[in-house]
């Protein structure tokens, strides 16, 4: 099983979610994060004083998928998350050894 971790623009989340549903994958966990990469932050202002906010709001997605589905899911995310501007985000893929559904205690690919 693969653990797909994507950091994307908040505004693209609905499209990513739709794209995942379109290819039949439902399970997803999201969290609010902040980050920066090449994209360097924005200038904000507080009572007349400008300052740099290094971190920009991003959404972190965790999607665990069966190995066979991994590339389809990745493609779906890439299509839906990209705007072509810097700040579009990153996807990291790693290996998951096991998954368990809490309610049924099913394990392995069946649990996803």
């Amino acid at each position, binding site marked *: 099983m693969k653990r797909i971790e994507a950091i994307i*623009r*908040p*505004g*693209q*989340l*609905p*499209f990513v*979610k*739709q794209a995942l549903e379109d290819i039949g994958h439902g399970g997803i966990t*999201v*969290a*609010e994060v902040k980050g920066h990469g090449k*994209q*360097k*932050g*924005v*200038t904000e202002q507080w009572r007349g004083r400008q300052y*740099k906010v290094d971190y*920009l709001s991003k*959404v972190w997605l965790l999607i665990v998928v069966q190995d066979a589905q991994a590339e389809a899911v990745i493609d779906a995310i890439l299509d839906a998350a*990209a*705007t*072509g*501007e*810097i*700040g579009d985000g990153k996807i990291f893929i790693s290996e998951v050894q096991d998954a368990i559904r809490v309610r049924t205690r099913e394990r392995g690919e069946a649990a996803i």
Partner: protein
Amino acid sequence: MSASVRLLRRPTAILAGAFLALALASTAFAQEADPVAGLGADLDRLWLMLAAFMVFLMQAGFAMVEAGFVRAKNTTNILMKNTLDASIGGIAFFFVGWAFAYGSSDSSNGFIGLGNFALTGFDDYASWIFQFAFAATAATIVSGAMAERTRFSAYLFYSVFISGIIYPVVVHWAWDANGWLTAFVPEGETPIGGGNGYIDFAGSGVVHMVGGFAGLVGAIMVGPRLGKYGPNGEVNAIPGHNIAIATLGMFILWFGWYGFNPGSTLALSGGASELAARVAVTTTLAAAAGGITAVIITKLTTGIYDMGLAVNGILGGLVGITAGCATIDPWASIIVGAVAAAIVIGGVRLLDSFKIDDPVGAVSVHGFAGVWGVLAVGLLSSENGVATAGYLDSSQYGLLLGGGVQQLGIQLLGVAAIVAWTAGTSAVLFGALKVMGQLRVEADEEHRGLDLLEHGIDAYPDFGPSAEGIFAPAGPRGRAAGPTPRPNITTTASASES
């Protein structure tokens, strides 16, 4: 005794001028006959209205304190309860509340007023708006004590009864000329006990004890919030969610109290303004003493400066001085406020030791400090204060100042009567709801928060990773795609490079 005499009387000594003015002003003729009396009546009506508006704003204060003191997941629920009891109170007080409190007809009696239902045959609108604001206050107190687990429909139901019946009857007893406890008997009659009768200038007993003890019975009946008391007797803490709005609410309440207490002179002309100003001073000092005392006590006992109890302490001080704000001297009002705060803090602990769960401290602040306020009249009123406030027999004043025990006795009678009536009727009301299974939400709803299932929302819907904050409609959905057609591709860079 004529209807016009029975209505809303205050002791005649101080308010004779005002009273006369009101009587005269009600006919156009009077205006010409005595323009000064007419102007005095205009001034008095202005005072009643302004005080009413300020007391009304206390609804916002209660809403903010209560909302701040509950968890985020029950915030919409408590806000909506506060919103609706103002509305329900208005309608209920129009149709029956005033009638039971001050309504005048031949069948009115010492226990209950009957007459002027739906304001028929009535035109003293300034008094109505003032009394309405008080009624709404009594009702709103209860919501805090029963917060975070009471069913919304039950709340609507009991709100009608509290503003429509339970509270007005107590008003009738204590403030209507006809009431059995009243200090404001018609010319020539004698109040209960032969002295001043029951002294409760602005309603520590009439308003706050009614709210507080109805809340106490409600809190007992509905039971504690899940998790408040652990299986091994632990008392868990369930912190509220927003100290900022709670503090705002406290300040709004303190502000509103300047309508509540000084406004209870009901008049300004004929020198009543002097009394009103004195009341403003005692109110201020009691609140201040309550706040300082609460902070000192918590600092000494817990080592930290506790904000929640500072808020409760100030409110306790305000409730405590409400009955005696006109008869207690300024220096003594400091004592009244300080003791009230101590009682509030003790009350919070006491309730927990009985596993009675009062999320915002409403029972201690309004119920217990209310009892103290009524008794403080019998302990600390000065002879001069009783005279200045216009009560009939200034020879009976505070026990601790040498005024004998009689006034205290009448005050105790008042406390007993109000507690008995309020607790009794509330027990029937909440008991019935409980028997019908209508009082409390399901455990699952309580866990998830009342906002979600009763109100379909949480109070801060746009915090958290919700992206654009745009949601497709519920129901059989086609391919609702994603709320917006993909926008970003074609727009300019979405982040500036600083």
